[in-house]
């Protein structure tokens, strides 16, 4: 038979134990209670028309063939539906007026391409195509020269901070800070820098 004091202590102990246990056992419900995610945050990457337009602005008119082969024709890698009624058939030769800015919007591989999503969260196929395009454009003399000139530089310009910024602004027109990575490279060539900037993903998100 316990004394009154011990009994009170025991009841208090029980009560604490009781509370702790309840909390512990109820915790899984709290943990699993509010964790349902009902949204998805896709990377809102530009579609093939946007990428091609940006690259054409930077690398000039001579880049159009490369862009057509590696970006515009990869409908499902980059997204961007075709417009079914924007047509000029390649077989068509009559009429003097040829409006070429229609051609990139036509559905050259069938009407199914008119239902493609406005943007596709990039997989590695897209990354691969873009890397390849960048390498090709930098390797080609005319397009490389165009880009260098657009940045207001020459192929022998010094790798000063202000020059590096000019190059950076081709792809990131609003960037304020110069990434240290560009300065850390040993003996970089402008080609290397241009190519790396081209391959970086983030300018593709408008």
């Amino acid at each position, binding site marked *: 038979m316990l004394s009154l004091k011990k009994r009170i202590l025991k009841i208090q102990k029980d009560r604490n*134990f009781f509370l702790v246990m309840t909390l512990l056992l109820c915790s*899984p419900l709290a943990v699993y209670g509010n964790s349902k995610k009902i949204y998805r945050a896709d*990377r809102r990457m530009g579609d093939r028309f946007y990428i091609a337009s940006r690259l054409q602005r930077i690398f000039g008119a001579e880049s159009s063939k490369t862009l057509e082969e590696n970006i515009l024709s990869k409908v499902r890698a980059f997204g961007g539906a075709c417009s079914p009624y924007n047509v000029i058939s390649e077989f068509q030769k009559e009429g003097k007026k040829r409006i070429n800015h229609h051609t990139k919007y036509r559905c050259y591989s069938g009407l199914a391409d008119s239902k493609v999503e406005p943007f596709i*969260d990039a997989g590695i196929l897209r990354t*691969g195509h873009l890397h390849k395009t960048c390498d090709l454009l930098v390797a080609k003399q005319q397009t490389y020269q165009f880009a260098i000139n657009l940045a207001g530089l020459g192929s022998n310009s010094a790798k000063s901070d202000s020059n590096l910024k000019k190059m950076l602004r081709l792809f990131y027109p609003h960037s304020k800070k110069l990434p240290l990575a560009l300065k850390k490279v040993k003996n970089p060539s402008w080609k*290397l820098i241009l190519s790396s900037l081209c391959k970086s993903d983030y300018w593709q998100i408008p």
Partner: protein
Amino acid sequence: MDRRDLLKFGSFGAAGFLLEGLAGGILSELYGASTNTSLKNYLLVNLFMAPARWPMDQILKPERNSSFYPNPFIKNKFSNIGAGSFNFELDYGTSDIGGIQFPHIWNYEVPRAGGGSRPMRELADHFLAIRGCNMILDGHFINNRRLDAPDPGGVSISGILSDLSDRPYSGISLAGITPYMNSAAGAFNSPNGKTPVILGNEVKDYLQYLANPFSVAAPTKDISQKAGRELLTNLMNELGANSRYFKTSNSNRKKAEEMMIYGLEKISTEYSAIFMKYQNLINRSLRKTNIKGVTDKVIPGLSLPFSTSVKRKENGNAYKIEDYLGTYRERDEYLLDNDLRGIFDAAEIYELAQQFAISEIIFKEKLSHSIVMTVGGVANLKVGRATDEENIVMKTIGDKVHFSYKDPKAIRKNLVTDHDPDSHEAGSLTTFLSCSLAWNAISSCLLEYIDQLKKAKIFDDTLIHVTTEFEREPAETDSGTHHGVTGHSSTLICGKIEGPQVIGNIYDISHDPNDVTPSCGTWGKGAPVAELDHNEIVYGNIASSICKILGISSPTPASKSLVRIDPNSKKITPLISKAKNVKFKKTHFKNSKRS
């Protein structure tokens, strides 16, 4: 607290965590999350335009004593064959494998890679056939697409799989020679918007195409690969700092670089060899075969003049030329060769070799988890002599009908044609020959493919699904076949299936007036299954079964799965009883056409 309390506390805590785990399991079940860490590979081999399966893998007689009503046109072997036209008898032959009656051709051997042959019945070791599925809708394109995306316009099995996959390619669609939107190869639809790579016949070299984005462009002298990669890594680390996109961008870059360094191109010589291997198997399976009861004896074509007794259809209408002579028909032509076996001497199934070759690479090199392969029909048939209906004269005298050429000189010589798998205009003979040889080729490729999967130790984790849109229903006369929309069958092959097994009920003979040819015999029309509340299997059940095996959620959750996976041994066993050939009851047909 004293030690005993602590113990009790601890054990309650443990019990709490156990229950927590249970609750977590139940909750994740409710939320549909897949807790399966090892994702399976899925290969869908669909034979486009629904060729007849009775010479292939359709089990019309699950048991030796199954009720079976022979039909004059559902045949898969010669019981005897003599000289001259119409001097043969066709039969429905079987091959007993594990008590199940497989079609006749399973008795024999198929070419083996590297030379020699192997028994076709090896394919039955891990074989589960699901028959008697009612597709409800008619149409090739819509039903072929449904093979991957069961609810038209909805998500596809390949799409759901791709969302859980971290392999470089979300899904690979091998469209063959068909416009991809018309088949399952174009039905890829993932809830998270992923897209597949589509390889069709406009692509010359599949491996090159897959490798193309990662083939490094000719580097200039002053860009070193290594320096470039280093700069890009550092640059992206800085540009992406604090960005929610950094993780995805970084992982994409790394994987793409791996692909570039790894260089799929480096395995292009290996790929050529693999391609040649399958091409060789296919050639030997189609050309100059010597299959007993099929192509071991001379098969004379049609020769006119020919006479027979007058026949009439059930409704009293007279037979037309195509009804009398249809057994020798292929599309518009009646085949007149002295030996019809010769037409297969240069036969091909376009793109099939590349499709199997790239499929081998894809799973072995872990490039993707899902492949949809759309297979075409037997093509490039070299017909020595043929004539069309315009050149045939049909004269009825009394109770005899006589056929002759209008102008013997108008016989066409040296044509090239192909067998239309959608054999509305191909009779029992041409259908049985083409489909038997097609199956010969496909099973030979499959056996080699499975060998390679076993070698790479991934056969247990791979599900191969061989199917067509639906079975074919014979016409009233031997002029062709029709769509058997109410009788689709699917064959599942996986290392974890102890075969052969067959489930799903069909009618031994159906008197449903909605059929194209009621009361024509056993062809595979779906019948009710007790475990499905006495309803026929619908494609949603098959889709759910496939997803059960793959360990992913089903695009048709309202339709039950027909298989279960043993949690320990991971063996796949049916949830419904063994296949039966069911007697037709009048009350059944009211529900034959659903919404």
